[in-house]
């Protein structure tokens, strides 16, 4: 029993077990849950939140936070839609929108690392700033994004699999590899574990912190492109409140808000838990008011169980 507990802790299997339990319960309660088309549908819906959450995982591992991802998503989406009318090359549009996201993230990083502003405050500021820029750029109106090739990014399929799912899995895989097997990843964990010790070990802590915000911005940009493509238009108010869902996914996945501990594998599972819950409650025709309450309770329960098991290990 002790060994099992150690195993669960070491490889952070807790969130996965939670996801499994929720899936089993939902497939008993609703016969429409456990079908290939429904599961693919859920995963596609999850992909946007998962992308934001993976970027946030990088930031949160260093002990930071990024509240601006929802606004960055809207900005990048708007830029993509705006470009479509004049630029015909879809890859160029995607690249440019992601680049806008990267710039926005880097700006956050500079405020935190060089400006020495607390991450919560810095990104609270840019959350409003980026939203404002999006509203100015769109003049407060949706921008249509009608293009068959562009629609493939968010609405297309490769075989039976929706493109956003493939993008999400690729991103998670790369992020997982970088965090686990590369020097960059190790250094990011080190900064979250103890910034001063990391600096005295020769790690350029500022550069790496900026990098994590850039990654977060880049992935928010990518998420913005996918959302715009799927909806065939960019909404200036897109992504409002998404940052909180993303943070919830990260925390559900076992990444510590104090930094140094966690990973993107858990984050993906965390995002799936939220998505599956939404989907299941919808299938059961639970009113959206109750859905909110249930989601909140699940998040609190998950974190409570996680804390208990960690404390018990000491």
């Amino acid at each position: 029993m002790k060994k099992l507990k150690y195993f669960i802790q070491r490889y952070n299997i807790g969130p996965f077990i939670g996801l499994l339990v929720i899936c089993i319960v939902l497939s008993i309660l609703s016969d429409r849950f456990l079908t290939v088309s429904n599961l693919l549908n859920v995963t596609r819906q999850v992909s946007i939140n998962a992308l934001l959450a993976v970027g946030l995982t990088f930031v949160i591992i260093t002990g930071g936070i990024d509240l601006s991802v929802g606004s960055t998503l809207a900005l990048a989406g708007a830029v993509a839609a705006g470009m479509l009318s004049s630029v015909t090359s879809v890859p160029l549009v995607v690249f440019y929108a992601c680049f806008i996201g990267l710039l926005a993230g880097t700006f956050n990083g500079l405020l935190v690392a060089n400006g020495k502003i607390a991450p919560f405050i810095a990104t609270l500021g840019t959350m409003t700033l980026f939203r404002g820029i999006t509203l100015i750029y769109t003049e407060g109106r949706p921008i249509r994004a009608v293009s068959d090739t562009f629609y493939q990014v968010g609405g297309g399929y490769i075989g039976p699999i929706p493109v956003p799912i493939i993008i999400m899995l690729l991103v998670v895989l790369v992020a997982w590899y970088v965090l686990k097997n590369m020097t960059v990843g190790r250094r990011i964990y080190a900064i979250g574990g103890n910034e001063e010790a990391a600096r005295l070990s020769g790690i350029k802590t500022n550069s790496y912190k900026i990098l994590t915000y850039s990654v977060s911005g880049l992935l928010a940009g990518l998420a913005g492109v996918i959302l715009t493509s799927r909806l065939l238009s960019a909404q200036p108010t897109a992504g409002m409140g998404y940052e909180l869902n993303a943070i919830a996914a990260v925390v559900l996945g076992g990444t510590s808000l104090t930094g140094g501990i966690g990973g993107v594998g858990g984050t993906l599972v965390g995002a799936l838990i939220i998505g599956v819950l939404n989907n299941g409650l919808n299938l059961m025709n639970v009113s959206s008011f109750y859905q909110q309450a249930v989601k909140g309770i699940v998040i609190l329960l998950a974190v409570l169980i996680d804390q208990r098991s960690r404390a018990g290990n000491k």
Partner: protein
Amino acid sequence: MTLLQMKGISKSFPGAKVLDGVNLEVKQGEIHALLGENGAGKSTLMKILTGIHQKDAGEIIYDGKKITPTNPKEAENLGIVMIHQEFNLVPYISAAENIYLGAEEAFSKMGIVNWKALYNSADKYLQQVGLNIYPGTKVADLNVGEKQLVEIAKALSRRTRLLIMDEPTAALTERETKRLFEIIKNLSANGVAIIYISHRMEELFAVCHRVTVLRDGKYIATKEIAETNIDELVSLMVGRQLSERFPKKPAEIGEVILQVKNFRNKYLHDVSIEVRAGEVVGLAGLMGAGRSELVRAIFGADPVEGKLVFGDFSGTFKHPSEAIKKGIAMVPEDRKDQGLILSFSVRHNLALPTLHKRAVMGNINYRQEKEMTRRQVEKLKIKLATPEQEAKSLSGGNQQKVVFGKWLEAEPKLFILDEPTRGVDVGAKVEIYNLINKLTSRGIGVLLVSSDLEELMGMSDRVYVMYEGKITGHFKRDEMSDEAIMYCATGGSK
């Protein structure tokens, strides 16, 4: 009269038996030293006594009754209070509020606190420990010695009959230490028993009545202080005779490898020093003299003006990474806050400064990393269950070895050691001294900061003395004496 008797206490943590049938007997009003290397089980024994941990076997008889405290509050109600090395004070509220933290009910009616009465009462206890401050002073504005006295005053206010002090003098100046001793003796004369944990032998002989020695979780002996001596205690602690406390082996001293010229910043005033290959250069001085600030500036950890020449480099390092690249390593003052990433495994800590050495295009080679870890663990005799265990689960001495290990792998030409043996037990100290010998024999220069004057004189070829950010003295090995160094360290100059 016996106040406390702990009999046959045993305790296991997953994977390790930490205490194995330990006895401890403390009389009323006695100052009883608890001695043992790091990892001998002192802390665990005290945590059982104060209810933080639960014993697996054995019994505790206190004041004639069998007790089993299950949390610190219960122990406190029985009159057992522990003052930890890291104080449990809230910095931004007053000394008086800290003293009565959680016990304000005594001064309140319907939740409204009578501050005047609370301050007056707190003042009484502050006076008792000889601390003449306004009770409303914020704890953050007090120095370490004063904070300690507030902790003691707090303990007194709780009608403590058994006070446990863990390394109480670790951060105190000599004067503060003396004052503390007077207070401890006073408490003992008033019937308060004290369990005194310290690595500093001289102190035990200055204040304690008896001493109990633990080793590897086992009870070894209890002695009257008057009937024992340092050598006997050290051999009881380590279980072997230590041939020499400072096994200095002078190495061949070569060229100047580090020249620091006119270093100036907020803490430093025109400091110039030199270190040669194979040489141990000591930096002596009191706390706050600027020793750590100097080595941090050399290492690029803090900004500084002036010039530094090291190999082909000339200028100042803007970031530790630049110093490391040129071949400087630093074991920092505080291993938990600066030396280690406590949540990292031993392997990850060891690998940190040299990650790039075992990586191709940023991909870490795990086989090489594990090999390196095995090599360092073996070379430094780091005691651990597995290299994958978190650094925070190691004892102080072993943690410090990990900090050494991570730098050995970088093969530096200059090793900066800032208080390398602080909070480290006698056995591990000697191992660190031997390591310093090994470094110098390979032509590595060592810059050693230490508050332990004996250690500094025992290990250094040369000593600079600092006072208020200036060099006030410079001694070769044959010119050193503790009087001369202390004279310079307190503002006189040679």
